[in-house]
């Protein structure tokens, strides 16, 4: 980030304040600080309570195998805006134990579980350190650099078998089971006792035991195949009558090893994979990833490319929000008819995506330093038509149909309330955060691309309930419309790419965190490069994943029927939750 772009405040040099406990990270290409593991809790507590860094956005691990070190990387923000305070904790690889931040920031909950699951970093003090994306009993921690998957061929791509020789064959043939399977030596399947989910159910059944009047709680399992869960998502709820007293989401049913594959891929090869994260809004994912890599490479796209990018990102946002209204209706029980309204609008935007990128859903449109192709003829006019006429009109129609609808109001107002403190502490982002009265929008708080030039308002609502989440999305779609109108008016002519398009980009060693305000919230990509053609670490801070931390807070005390509504109003996409 360049100096003149600082928006709220400079990052204080905490190595002075916490002398002896914190040192600067001086590795070339790295920034931030290194905190001693034993001081972590003190330092973070002070950062939160005294320096105002109250929003823990991302926690992840990096396995520095050659140095024998495991590093945990934290990105901390102020909820009033500004750049990140990055700090790291380094521990030995074979004894990776770090204090848990769970009790200071609830947003660490799932992220620490993920780091435990995939990297084997044990967080002391975490009350529920179970595996999250794989299952209990899974052999090993797959993101460790020395862990090999059953179809392992080589450390990095392009694999010698494919390029330059191009040998054709089935990867299955290299595996003794002719399948994507491997078992530890000496393992006997007959004696295996599935470690199913005792831990999960046990905690659900404990609830309500110690009440004076003994009433039974019922444990209900929703999903992973359930019409309301928007994909393969599962919840375990304990009910007292109809009231939810306990709720735990269970995820990982769509864990597709995005990060492991990403670390084997070359940089450009990852671009199409990002499409498949939040598959409803693939363009935004491209955006985040391109920004992160561009930060590392130190390049900027030309003007026209920036405008095209913002145009695509805002069209995506508009489409995503309208889609979410369709789902809202669905979850309210008005099955599918409203969805058809939403899909009709979506088709029109998909037509534009198809025209520019060649694919309806999986656009793979952004490149480092620009976009893949220029806008084909006629597209701009089509977009103009949409943004000046159809889109505002349709939003008004939706507004008229939904906002004053009695059922919508009765069901949504006061349902699933999340206070501002909870939202910040849980690391909620996007419309979920802004509906709780926190005007935090990365496009303003930490501007990227050309957003600092565009005229739009950060939408905020204050009740933090489902209805406000809906209103936030509605108003945001209006703001997107406003941005789009400016973009199509001002888009300049010119090149769409800095430098020549290349299959293999040169990325200097270092780390970068690129984040965008995706329709679902803060989408961040944390990338560590060693100067090789492949990223050493590739981590996705997925908004849907972290927003789900708030689900229990929203549902506890409410009725079971509202769980469905709350889940819908968070607006998750499982591709992004499970990655």
């Amino acid at each position: 980030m360049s100096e003149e772009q600082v928006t709220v405040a400079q990052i204080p040099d905490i190595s002075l304040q916490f002398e002896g406990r914190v040192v600067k990270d001086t590795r070339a290409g790295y920034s931030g600080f290194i905190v001693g593991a034993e001081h972590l809790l003190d330092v973070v507590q002070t950062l939160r309570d005294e320096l105002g860094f109250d929003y823990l956005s991302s926690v992840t691990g990096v396995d520095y195998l050659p140095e024998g070190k495991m590093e945990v990387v934290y990105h901390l923000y102020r909820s009033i805006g500004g750049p990140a305070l990055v700090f790291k904790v380094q521990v030995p690889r074979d004894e990776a134990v770090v204090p848990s931040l769970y009790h200071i920031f609830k947003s660490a909950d799932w992220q620490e579980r993920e780091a435990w699951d995939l990297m084997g970093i044990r967080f002391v003090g975490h009350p529920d350190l179970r595996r999250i994306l794989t299952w209990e009993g899974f052999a090993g921690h797959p993101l460790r650099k020395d862990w090999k998957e059953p179809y392992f061929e080589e450390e990095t791509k392009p694999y010698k078998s494919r390029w330059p020789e191009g040998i054709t064959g089935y990867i299955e043939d290299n595996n003794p089971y002719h399948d994507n399977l491997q078992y530890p030596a000496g393992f006997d399947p007959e004696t295996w006792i599935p470690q199913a989910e005792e831990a999960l159910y046990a905690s659900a059944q404990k609830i309500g035991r110690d009440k004076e009047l003994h009433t039974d709680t019922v444990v209900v399992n929703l999903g992973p195949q359930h019409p309301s869960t928007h994909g393969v998502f599962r919840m375990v709820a304990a009910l007292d009558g109809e009231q939810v007293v306990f709720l735990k989401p269970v995820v990982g049913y769509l864990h597709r090893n995005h990060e492991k594959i990403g670390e084997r891929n070359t940089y450009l090869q990852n671009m199409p994979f990002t499409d498949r994260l939040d598959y409803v809004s693939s363009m935004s994912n491209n955006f985040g990833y391109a920004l992160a890599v561009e930060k590392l490479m130190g390049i900027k796209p030309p003007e026209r490319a920036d405008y095209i990018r913002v145009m695509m990102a805002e069209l995506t946002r508009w489409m995503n929000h309208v889609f979410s209204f369709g789902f809202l209706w669905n979850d309210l029980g008005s099955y599918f008819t409203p969805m058809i309204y939403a899909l009709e609008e979506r088709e029109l935007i998909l037509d534009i995506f198809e025209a520019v990128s060649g694919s309806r859903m999986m656009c793979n449109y952004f490149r480092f330093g620009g976009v893949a192709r220029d806008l084909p003829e006629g597209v701009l006019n089509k977009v103009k038509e949409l943004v000046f006429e159809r889109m505002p009109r349709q939003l008004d129609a939706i507004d008229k149909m939904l906002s004053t609808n009695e059922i919508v109001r009765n069901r949504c107002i006061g349902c699933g309330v999340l206070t501002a403190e909870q939202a910040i502490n849980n690391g909620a982002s996007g419309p979920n955060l802004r509906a709780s009265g926190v005007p935090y929008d990365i496009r303003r708080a930490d501007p990227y691309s050309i957003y600092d030039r565009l005229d739009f308002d950060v939408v905020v609502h204050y009740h933090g309930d489902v209805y406000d989440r809906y209103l936030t999305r509605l108003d945001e779609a209006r703001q997107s419309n406003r941005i789009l109108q400016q973009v199509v008016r001002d888009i300049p002519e010119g090149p769409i790419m800095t430098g020549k398009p290349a299959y293999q980009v040169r990325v200097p060693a270092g780390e970068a965190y690129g984040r965008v305000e995706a329709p679902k919230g803060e989408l961040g990509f944390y990338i560590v490069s060693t100067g090789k053609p492949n990223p050493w670490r590739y981590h996705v801070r997925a908004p849907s994943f972290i927003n789900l931390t708030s689900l229990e807070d929203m549902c506890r005390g409410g009725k079971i029927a509202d769980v469905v509504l709350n889940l819908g109003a968070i607006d998750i996409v499982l591709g992004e939750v499970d990655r």
Partner: protein
Amino acid sequence: MSDETIQSSNYEIPPEMQGTVSITSLDKVYAWSRKNSMWPMMFGLACCAIEMIVLAASRFDIARFGMEVMRPSPRQSDFLIVSGTVTKKMVPQIVRLYNQMPEPKYVVSMGACASGGGPFKEGYSVVSGIDKYIPVDVYIPGCPPTPQALLNGLIALTKKVDKERIKTSEWYAKGSEAAVPVPVLGPDLMDPRKYALIYEQTHRPIEPEIPAETEQKEG
């Protein structure tokens, strides 16, 4: 409905009754009514599921083929669209759902992932195609397949159904198929049918690794 496809040609129908009466065989009318009312199970797995939803909306509209009734319950469905990446964590549920479907039942594998692992095939928790566990009737390529492609696949399925005859159909044969054993999650996914193989492999004496060169396969 077109009379020509269902009418058997061997019978004369008096002119005054043409258009109201058809004479046909039981087989034909049975297949005809079945293929025009195939109910999919509503079951979304991943990105492909979005295109499946789109198929039900106005632009593509599977109601034209009598398929618009999507039921989330396996009990009321004729076929299962496996729409997306099948992960090891999810496969036991899919097999269970398949077992719960009433016969005759069909499986459509939608997209690269469900058919063979797709872009995520190399991942450690992705199943290389659902056909490793349950039988598949129609494969649809694409990532994701466009709604048109999906529609084409579904039409192929109706054609298959149309060709079935009560006498020869496997569904009505004696001793119908046993349920597919549900895989178990262990250190990795375990298919109960393969326990012996797993045991054999994990108890092999460890041989010194010979750096096996990948050799060009013939054919």
